[in-house]
C-alpha cells in the first residue's frame, strides 16, 4: 500500500510539474518580448543592454505602421458591426425558430468557421476575380465577417438558451408590444453576450492573417500583413515594441471579456 502511495504522489507530482511547465511556456515568451522592447541596442540580443522608451517613440513616428494599424482598426470595427447586424438576428432565429430546417440553419451559419481560413480567403479572392471585384478593405471586411460570424452567433445563442422565456411573456402580459419587450427585456439581457462576441470579432478583424492575406487591398495594407513583412526583414526591437502594443491590446480585451461575461464563460 505504501509503495502505490509513493507512486501516486510521484505521478500526480509529475502531472502538476508538466502543467506548470505549460503555463510558463504560455507566459514567458510574451514577457521576454516586452523586456526586449526596452533594449537600447539596435538589434535583438539577450540580455538587454539598457532601458529606453525610444522604440515606442519611433513606433508612433512610422507612418506606414500607424497607417496599417489604423486600417486594421477600421477592419475590426467593420467586421464587428457586420457580425452584430447579421449575427444577432441569426442567433434569435437559431435559438427560437420553429420552422423546418432550424437545426440546419445553425449548422450552415457555423460552417464557414470550420473551413480553414486560408481556403476561404483563396475562394473569395477567386470569386472576386471572376466578377471583376478586386481585393480591398471591403472585400477583406466582409470575408472576415463571414469567417467569424459563427463566434457571435454561438455566444448570443448560448445566452438566449439560458434566458427565461417567462420574462418576455410577463412583459407581453403587462401589455408590452414585441418591440418594447425586446428592447427593454431581451436586448439588455443579451448585451453581455453581444459585447463579448464583439471583442472576439474585433480581435479577429484586427489580427487575422489567413483570410486577410488574400483579400486585403494593396493600397491599405492591414497590420498583420505589414507585421509579417517587418518580422521577416528586420531584427530591431521596433518589432518587439509593436508586439508589446498588441499584447497590451490583448490584455485590454481580456479585461473587457471578464467585465462582460466573465472569463469562465468564454467557452459556453
Amino acid at each position, binding site marked *: 500500500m505504501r509503495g502505490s502511495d509513493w507512486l*501516486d504522489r510521484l505521478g500526480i507530482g509529475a502531472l502538476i510539474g508538466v502543467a506548470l511547465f505549460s503555463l510558463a*511556456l504560455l507566459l514567458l515568451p510574451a514577457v521576454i518580448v516586452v523586456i526586449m522592447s526596452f533594449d537600447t541596442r539596435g538589434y535583438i540580443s539577450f540580455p538587454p543592454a539598457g532601458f529606453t522608451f525610444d522604440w515606442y517613440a519611433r513606433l508612433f513616428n512610422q507612418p506606414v505602421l500607424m497607417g496599417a494599424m489604423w486600417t486594421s482598426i477600421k477592419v475590426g470595427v467593420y467586421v464587428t458591426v457586420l457580425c452584430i447586424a447579421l449575427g444577432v438576428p441569426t442567433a434569435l432565429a437559431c435559438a427560437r425558430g420553429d420552422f423546418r430546417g432550424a437545426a440546419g440553419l445553425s449548422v450552415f451559419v457555423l460552417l464557414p468557421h470550420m473551413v480553414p481560413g486560408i481556403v476561404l480567403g483563396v475562394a473569395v479572392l*477567386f470569386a472576386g476575380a471572376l466578377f471583376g471585384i478586386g481585393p480591398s478593405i471591403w472585400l477583406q471586411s466582409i470575408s472576415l465577417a463571414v469567417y467569424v460570424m459563427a463566434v457571435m452567433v454561438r455566444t448570443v445563442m448560448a445566452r438566449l438558451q439560458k434566458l427565461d422565456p417567462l420574462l418576455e411573456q410577463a412583459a407581453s402580459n403587462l401589455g408590452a408590444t*414585441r418591440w418594447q419587450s425586446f428592447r427593454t427585456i431581451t436586448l439588455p439581457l443579451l448585451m453581455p453576450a453581444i459585447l463579448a462576441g464583439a471583442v472576439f470579432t474585433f480581435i479577429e478583424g484586427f489580427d487575422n492573417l*489567413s483570410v486577410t492575406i488574400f483579400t486585403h487591398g494593396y493600397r491599405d495594407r492591414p497590420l498583420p500583413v505589414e507585421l509579417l513583412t517587418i518580422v521577416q526583414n528586420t531584427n530591431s526591437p521596433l518589432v518587439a515594441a509593436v508586439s508589446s502594443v498588441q499584447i497590451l491590446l490583448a490584455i485590454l480585451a*481580456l479585461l473587457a471579456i471578464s467585465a462582460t461575461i466573465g472569463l469562465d464563460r468564454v467557452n459556453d
Partner: protein
Amino acid sequence: MTATALPRRLLDEVLSGRGIWPAVPAVVVLTVVAVIPFCILLSLGFSDITVSRGVIVSQTFSLRHLATALSDPLYQITFQRSLTLALSTTALCVLLGFPVAYLFLIGNAWMRRIILVLTIAPILTSGIVRTYSWIVILGGRGVVNSLLIDLGVISAPLRIINTQWAVIIGMVQVHLPIMILPLIAVMSRHDRRLDEASANLGASRLGTLRHVILPLSIGGLGTGAALVFTLSYTTFVVPQLLGGGNYLNAATMIYEQIVYSLEWSKGAVTALLLMLSCLSVLAVITWLTNLGTRWTRASQR
C-alpha cells in the same frame, strides 16, 4: 390592413425569432461570400484559366492541374510534411494541455483564474506576435543561445531558428491555448463528488484520474485536438517565420503559388487538396473520440 400595421407585423415576426426571417440577411451574405466562392474554387481546380490584371477572363475544363498535383513528388513531400507537423503538434498539445486542465480541476479559485488568463490572453494576441517571440528566444543571439553561452555549455551559438525544431516548438506553443480551452470547459462542468466517491471506494488519485476524470474528458480532448489540428495544418505564419522560408508546408505552398507565382489553378488545386485532407483527418479524430466515449461507457458497466 392599414399602412402602419404591416411593418409592425413584420417587426413582430422578426423579433419573435420564430420564423426564418431574422436569419435571411446572414444566409444571403454567407451564400454570396462563402458558398458561391467555394463552388468557384472547386470549379477552378478543374479548369485552365487565363488571368489578366487580376480578373479571370477565360476558363475551360481541364484535369491537367489536378493530375500534375497528384503525381508531383513536391506535393507528396509537402503534404506529408504538413501532416506530420500538424499531427505531432496535436499530440504534444494534448500531452502538455491535459495536465493544465487537471491543475485547473484540482486548483483553487486563484489557480483557476491564473490558468484562464494565461489561456485566453494568447488567443487574443496575434499569431505573428507570438511567433515573433520565438525568433527572440531561439535566434542566434536569442535567450537560449545567450544563456547556454553564459553558462559555458556551448562556445558558439546553436542554429535553432530556421530548423524544423524551431517550427515544432513554435507550433506547439502557439496552438496550446486552443487545446486547453475546451478541456477547461469540461473540467468546470466536472462534478467533484465523483472524485470523492472514487477516493472513498479506495482509488488512488492516479486511479481516479484514469478511471473517472480522463474518460469524462474525452469529448474535450477530441474538440481540442480537432481545433489544433485544423489550425496547425493550415497555418503559414509559424513555418514561414521560424522555418526561414525553406520549410514549405501546404499552406505556404498555396500562398506562394497564388501571391508570388500567380499560378491560380495550381493554387486552387492545392487549396482543395488541403481542405479534403484536413476534413479526412477531422473525420478520423471524430471517429476516435466517439470510439473512446463508447469504449469508456462500455467499460464502466
